[in-house]
């Protein structure tokens, strides 16, 4: 009898949960859309339930996004879901990273809107904002927007107006193979062979030494060779961001505020100073410890290489780390996260000498950005799509899939529980969120360029760095070439135009905003 009562109570409790909880509420949606099976639908203004009440039958939404998988895959997936829910027809065009800027700018400048929604990088904002519709108040006031971190609200906005709908938040940090670095046998062997400690590298020199040591041999016993590091080295595939990450420790001196890329007063390019040259010299050395062909690795290759267990280290966006932590990864729960390595010296441009001592500077790469064309005739549907893309259920599912390229940008993402729920070990989840949180707290951060002609500046830098990596020029000669081109671009764009926009980023770096 007692047993029967307990059973009845348990059944009643489960039934109540099924009826009243979010999970139960969402089950009807997760049945149709398995992507959100972990959480089900989560109530909100742009939830599955809310979107199902919209009717966009007979209307077509046109989207230009990145190539599959990074950002391209979630765009297409959510487009398909949105179409099913609302009856809209959604056309998704996939474009390589290097062409996203022009694919939007050509029609923008011609006064056309072949795409209602355009994806790009958040540092395009200064060039694109003239052609984008501001995000309506209805969306900026929504609950899901209130959880976005202030830094990412700032990133999506210009002069207080939000032009880019937050769907991603990026930064660079170090990823390493925990099963190797924490392995007592390898620690002993490394000490015996090099006389140094095997530990999470805190400087780029240590990073290079360890990567070189663990290069080109089978250190995980899978019958295949592993390598030291996977990095984004392909010229047209965001490699400039990887270079800035390697440069920050050597060139971002907290004693010399007033600019990382330029001296804000004189607008002299700083990218060929000894700090940047030291970083490029390290990077040229890194070509010896990347996998064969690593010099041509784009972001997708880097994610696949580190996420697939091919290398000891990697240091770009979250994607490779999240890919490594997916249940189907061969290195699931065998990786760790840490701050970008630092340096034992940093260039002081005021004294023209090195300041000795440890220095570290996180690089906030910002991330994928997306806006709605001002000339779009389907603005309401376009914003609804973006709001649906970033709704809580989709967001939680997306951030757990490395190849999607959707990374934390909400306060809720910085809780370890979010990650342990999808199968991460507790200590790894904690180290991950701690790493991200520490970056937010740092007072010596670097933010990317958000100035007129950003694409030209970065392309010139990437070409020069690529020449150095390929052995066509020495690091100093390559960066001198880049600095000369930066001066030429400054002259074409106008120093004052660039200074005005750059001063916003400098204020952020100098902790004045």
């Amino acid at each position, binding site marked *: 009898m007692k047993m029967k009562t307990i059973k009845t109570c348990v059944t009643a409790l489960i039934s109540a949960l099924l009826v009243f909880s979010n999970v139960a509420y969402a089950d009807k949606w997760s049945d149709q859309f398995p992507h959100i099976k972990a959480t089900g639908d989560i109530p909100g203004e742009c939830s599955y339930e809310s979107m199902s009440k919209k009717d966009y039958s007979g209307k077509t939404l046109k989207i230009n996004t990145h190539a599959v998988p990074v950002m391209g895959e979630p765009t297409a997936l959510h487009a398909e879901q949105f179409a099913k829910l609302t009856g809209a027809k959604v056309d998704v065009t996939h474009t390589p990273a290097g062409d996203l800027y022009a694919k939007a700018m050509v029609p923008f400048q011609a006064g056309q809107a072949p795409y209602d929604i355009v994806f790009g990088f958040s540092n395009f904002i200064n060039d694109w904002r003239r052609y984008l519709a501001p995000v309506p108040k209805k969306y900026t006031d929504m609950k899901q927007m209130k959880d976005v971190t202030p830094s990412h609200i700032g990133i999506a906005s210009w002069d207080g107006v939000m032009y880019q709908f937050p769907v991603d938040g990026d930064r660079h940090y170090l990823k390493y193979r925990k099963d190797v670095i924490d392995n007592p046998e390898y620690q002993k062997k490394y000490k015996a062979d090099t006389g140094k400690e095997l530990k999470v590298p805190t400087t780029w020199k240590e990073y290079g030494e360890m990567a070189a040591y663990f290069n080109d041999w089978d250190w995980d016993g899978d019958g295949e060779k592993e390598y030291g590091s996977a990095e984004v080295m392909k010229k047209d595939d965001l490699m400039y961001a990887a270079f800035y990450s390697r440069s920050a420790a050597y060139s971002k001196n907290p004693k010399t505020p007033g600019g990382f890329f330029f001296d804000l007063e004189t607008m002299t390019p700083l990218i060929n100073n000894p700090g940047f040259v030291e970083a490029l010299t390290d990077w040229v050395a890194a070509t010896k410890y990347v996998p064969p062909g690593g010099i041509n690795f784009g972001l997708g290759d880097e994610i696949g290489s580190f996420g697939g267990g091919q290398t000891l280290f990697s240091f770009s966006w979250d994607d490779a780390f999240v890919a490594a932590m997916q249940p189907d990864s061969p290195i699931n729960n065998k990786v760790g996260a840490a701050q970008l390595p630092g340096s034992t010296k940093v260039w002081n441009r005021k004294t023209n000498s090195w300041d000795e001592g440890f220095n570290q500077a996180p690089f906030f790469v910002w991330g994928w950005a997306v806006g709605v064309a001002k000339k779009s005739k389907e603005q309401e549907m376009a914003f609804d799509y973006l709001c649906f893309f970033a709704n809580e259920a989709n967001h939680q599912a997306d951030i757990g899939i490395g190849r999607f390229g959707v990374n934390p940008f909400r306060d809720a993402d910085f809780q370890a529980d979010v990650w342990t729920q999808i199968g991460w070990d507790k200590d790894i989840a904690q180290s991950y969120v701690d790493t991200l949180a520490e970056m937010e707290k740092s007072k010596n951060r670097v933010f990317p360029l958000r100035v007129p002609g950003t694409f030209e500046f970065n392309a010139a830098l990437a070409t020069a760095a*690529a020449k150095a990596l390929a052995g066509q020029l020495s690091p100093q000669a390559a960066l001198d070439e880049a600095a000369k081109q930066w001066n030429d671009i400054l002259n074409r764009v106008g120093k004052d135009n660039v200074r005005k926009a750059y001063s916003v980023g400098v204020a952020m770096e100098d902790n004045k905003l």
Partner: protein
Amino acid sequence: MNFKHKFVFLFPGLFVLIGILIFPIIFTIRLSLSGWNSYTPEMNFIGITNYIRLFTDDPRFWESFFRLSFLSVSTVILQYIIGFALALMVWKEIKFKRFFRVIFLIPMMTTPVIMTVIWRTFFHESLGPVNDLLGHIGIGPILWLSDPVIAKFTVIIVEVWQWTPFMFLLLLAGLLSLPKEPFLAAAIDGASPFRKFVYVTFPLMAPISIGAIIIRLIEASKIMDTVFVLTSGGPGTATETSSFYIYIKGLREFQMGYAATLSFTYLVIMIISLTIIAKVLTKLMIKE
């Protein structure tokens, strides 16, 4: 017939010519005299500033042009030699002649971009089958796409594979159209196959060869898709060609005015150089 009536009949052709050739060239010239870019999207007039920049301050364009010259000349020479050899092979009565003719044409029928993606996968240094196979016999890994010198030869391999069939097709058509009498006369005189080729086949094929070489040179000088997919112009700028560089300046960095300057200059250079090449080839290959 009244002169004016004849003139009216010329109008449709003239309109088409103006629409598809003259107008784009004039527009390009006008654009090249402007500073149109991402932050000043307008057809302003800046005189010959872009041309001065090109001729005094852009070594990357000239490097890419000389690289293009090397790639196009070497690929076309290889395509001509291999294409001629294949055409001679199936010109004669051999078994499975029709089968071979179809087989040799397959690369040309495939989509260049898709085939280049497949070649890129073949040549992938750590995951591709080429290095894997070479590894079994103790060779490699060869840096097919990462070494500045080897990457150029990888581009040449793919281009030769893709476009040799075109050369083969033109030369085979030429061989099939040759008169039989000179060959009969050579046979009666007891000429060896080598002497027949040198003194009969090759001279008779000279006009067709020149045409085929010029057509392929024009096409090869526009090489873009192979470079774009295979190497993206890298490593560094080691495989960057003129058309790829113009594409970068115009559609990646959005310097439309300057890209127009590069395009127009490139057009002029190509017209002059191809005219000279055609005349030199005619002089070398056709003897009065």
